[in-house]
């Protein structure tokens, strides 16, 4: 069960508390094993790509970019989790072990922070602590991580979201070096760019569109007679409540499955909407890269020349990284500003 859950990037546990429950994750040692299992296949898939297409260097570049982001996310989360919660500081309580709200004493703040990034980078979704209780910035980081949804590969789908970013990066950087952009010897033209752009649009639309719908319900129809009234959805109203809703849809779109619990989501609205987001957010991004590959494969192969931009160079890695950060940051910054960022600045004026 745990093996399937962790290695298979499935994430659904037997107990509601998932790997925070002692029977699913009894000790620090099992925690280490389970964390490694989350990452094992997704990381291996990146190398499998290089192995099969005989471009190992491309794999290293992709792995380098992914790991760079992964390490930054981990570092940020560990910093904020081990630092503790400023609100508790104010009460004069020492937090020698960091922010322990919603965490297991046997695992500790750092291990939970690491797990939170690992599980949101891959589309795993298992948890070993309550994400709802993470400090604001850590919560924001894991939401961002799922918005990017391109670190390492999910089991079965490989690096498809990262591939979309590659297509956009190839296009822009191809223009910057004065050549019609090409990837692996095939020209990237209008149709490929169109598909890649649509997928980028899709996640932005699903995540923000539905979060907007949810906030609309909360503000304008708080008393609709559903199993849980919109007024009662949020355990914590205000910014954190916003993060909860944002997290829910981001997680569905990324096929992650974890939740900022604390959201009363077992009712018609949430079950139906997240279902829709899950379906669209899962299958369309699988179809699109295959369509792009199909289009590319039908084009003439162009051998590499010194004027060709190499996609396995560090420079191109940096370019992809920049595209990932700018595209996600640009499209999600206002949402993140109203959720985690506003919460953080309110807690730390």
């Amino acid at each position, binding site marked *: 069960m745990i093996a399937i859950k962790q290695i298979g990037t499935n994430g659904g546990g037997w107990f509601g508390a998932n790997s925070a429950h002692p029977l699913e994750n009894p000790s620090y040692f099992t925690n280490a094993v389970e964390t490694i299992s989350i990452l094992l296949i997704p990381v291996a898939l990146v190398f499998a790509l290089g192995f099969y297409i005989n471009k190992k260097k491309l794999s290293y570049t992709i792995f380098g970019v992914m790991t760079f982001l992964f390490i930054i996310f981990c570092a940020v989360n560990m910093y904020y989790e081990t630092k503790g919660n400023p609100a508790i500081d104010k009460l004069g309580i020492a937090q020698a072990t960091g922010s322990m709200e919603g965490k297991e004493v046997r695992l500790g703040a750092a291990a939970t922070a690491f797990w939170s990034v690992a599980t949101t980078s891959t589309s795993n979704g298992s948890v070993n602590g309550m994400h709802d209780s993470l400090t604001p910035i850590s919560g924001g980081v894991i939401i961002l991580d799922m918005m990017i949804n391109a670190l390492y590969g999910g089991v079965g789908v490989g690096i498809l979201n990262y591939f979309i970013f590659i297509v956009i990066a190839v296009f822009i950087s*191809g223009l910057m*070096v004065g050549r019609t952009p090409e990837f692996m010897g095939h020209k990237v033209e*209008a149709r490929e760019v169109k598909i890649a752009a649509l997928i980028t*649009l899709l996640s932005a639309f699903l995540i923000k569109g539905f979060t907007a719908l949810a906030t609309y319900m909360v*503000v304008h129809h708080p008393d609709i007679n559903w199993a849980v009234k919109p007024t009662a959805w949020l355990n914590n109203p205000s910014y954190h409540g916003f993060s909860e809703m944002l997290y829910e849809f981001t997680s569905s779109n990324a096929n992650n499955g974890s939740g900022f619990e604390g959201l009363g989501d077992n009712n018609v609205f949430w079950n139906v909407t997240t279902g829709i987001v899950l379906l669209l957010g899962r299958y369309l991004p699988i179809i699109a890269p295959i369509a792009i590959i199909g289009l590319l494969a039908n084009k003439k192969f*162009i051998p590499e*020349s010194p004027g060709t931009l190499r996609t396995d160079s560090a420079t191109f890695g940096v370019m992809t990284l920049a595209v990932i950060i700018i595209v996600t940051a640009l499209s999600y910054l206002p949402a993140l500003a109203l959720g985690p960022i506003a919460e953080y*600045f309110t807690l730390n004026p």
Partner: protein
Amino acid sequence: MPKNKRNTRLFEPSLLGTAIKQSFVKLNPVLMVKNPVMFTVEIGTAVMFVVSIYQAISKDLSQGALWYNITIFVILLITVLFANFAEALAEARGKAQAESLRKTREDTPAKKISIADGIFINEIKVVPSSQLRKDDYFLCETGDIIPMDGEIVEGIATIDESAITGESAPVIREAGGDKSSVTGGTKVLSDQIKVKVTTEPGESFLDKMIALVEGASRKKTPNEIALTILLAAFTLIFIIVCVTLKPFADYANTSITIAAFISLFVCLIPTTIGGLLSAIGIAGMDRALRANVIAKSGKAVETAGDVDVLLLDKTGTITIGNRKATNFYPANRVNENEFIDYAVLSSLADDTPEGKSILELAKSKGKIIPSYRNDFSITFIKFTAETRSSGINLADGKKIRKGSFDAIRDLAKKSGNSFPSETEEKVKTISANGGTPLVVSVNNEIKGVIELQDIIKPGIQQRFERLRKMGVKTVMVTGDNPLTAKYIATVAGVDDFIAEAKPEDKMNYIRKEQASGKLVAMMGDGTNDAPALAQADVGVSMNSGTQAAKEAGNMIDLDNDPTKLIEVVEIGKQLLITRGTLTTFSIANDVAKYFAIVPALFIASIPALQSLNIMELKSPESAILSAVIFNAIIIPLLIPLALKGVTYKPIGASALLRRNILIYGLGGIIVPFIGIKLIDLLLSLFM
């Protein structure tokens, strides 16, 4: 090459007027819709206009102060106008350039002649050139301006093409062969030619190019389409951002004014590149025109940037025109002085550049060249394809002959003379060093050999080196034997060569390269080049070339300069790079704009977000205004860059990408922080 650059100042006053007028004409939504990014800005402007009017009537202050809304409206309008201005200016410049070429040929009197049963009727009717139709004939004599593009059917003339090419040295054009084309507006300096009109008025290549620049028939190139799609997608993403922001803000109990929404939207969408995109494309064609190249489509210019293989003719491109005599090697037992005398005599009537160069070399060795007299005792023997030699029969019965190694050897053998081994040795050495040996005989007795060498153009090695760094493979095409070809190829630094090339060899080479996925560019002028020009991805034909060649290629070089291909490739690359870097710059700008606008939107209800206001802008209103103003003025500030193009440096793709990311990516993040802060400081003086 300063001779042929027509430089117009970037903001030529005479063009500004037209450009400004056109900026307003282009506000027409039907025209705007072609540019999705700027079209959405125009809609935003219209909304702000309605809001301002409504507010002026209702005095409702829930949307912010009236002056503030009107200011936003005006700035947005200016943003759209700036973008239109960029496009209009690029168009005006291109048009002015083309017009200056076209003007030369308007309403010149033409001496029309008619033809009956293939015989010209010598009756001249003077008509304005505009009345000439395709397949009409006209006559041009010394001092006449050629009224229309055409092909010489009879006669030979020297022509001053400086009006088109800027090159003052006259050129020779004659009926038949590959130099039979004449261009309207050029002047006949001597002799008389009969010319057949090849184009209908208004359909010449130049007319077509003007239409391309004017936009009537301008088609977006594949890369431009792809980029427009990407930009449209970014625009849609920001529509989603702004639309969803409304319920988000409601949830956070913040009211956001319509002006703020529209400002946020306009600042976030890539207006900079959206506004300059078509200007960049037109400027690319304009730059081609400035280099005296007429492109038949924008796509051709763009494809030139992608070219992998360049086919270059040896003569004129790699070597200076023709071979020159460099050395005299007398055979054993022949006095050098005597041998040079024979060489001079054999070349007296030789009008070929090679022949003349022999006389020059002799002169430089202190020989006095006997004057050319119509002496009946002397008979000059012309070169024929049969004898493959030429020479002179002197009064004293001496028969001096000069020709290729095998031709003279055959002559000598026939009369029983042997070919001296040391001369044969010399002939081989000369060939191996890329030279051409010319053997001289007197009464069929071998006297020695003259060495002719190709002079490789100074600086051509560096140009090939530059091309290699761009990733372009150069191929030399020559009629020389493989040995000579190999030598010149090595010295000049080309990557490959086709020796003893026949027209079909070029064609086959192009096909072979294309089959392996490469793009090939070539230059040609003759009718037999036409198939290869059509087959090549970029075919540049010389203006002096035949009509068939001009029809087949997708660009025409008015200067007839074979090295032009290299320039064309750079222009193409520059076009793509300018687009790419400005896109990067435009998108990178958003980071700073977010930091200006997002805190401004929520500061009232979430004071904690003040910490995001890292630029410490004065007030929410000034922050939004600064961002919108910056967004507007960056467009005209970048017009010079868009029109001139980003400098291209052949330093390899990765290095170039690094450089451009640093300048335009990182620069694009930093510049707006500074710009917005400065505008805010300025605004705070008034607010």
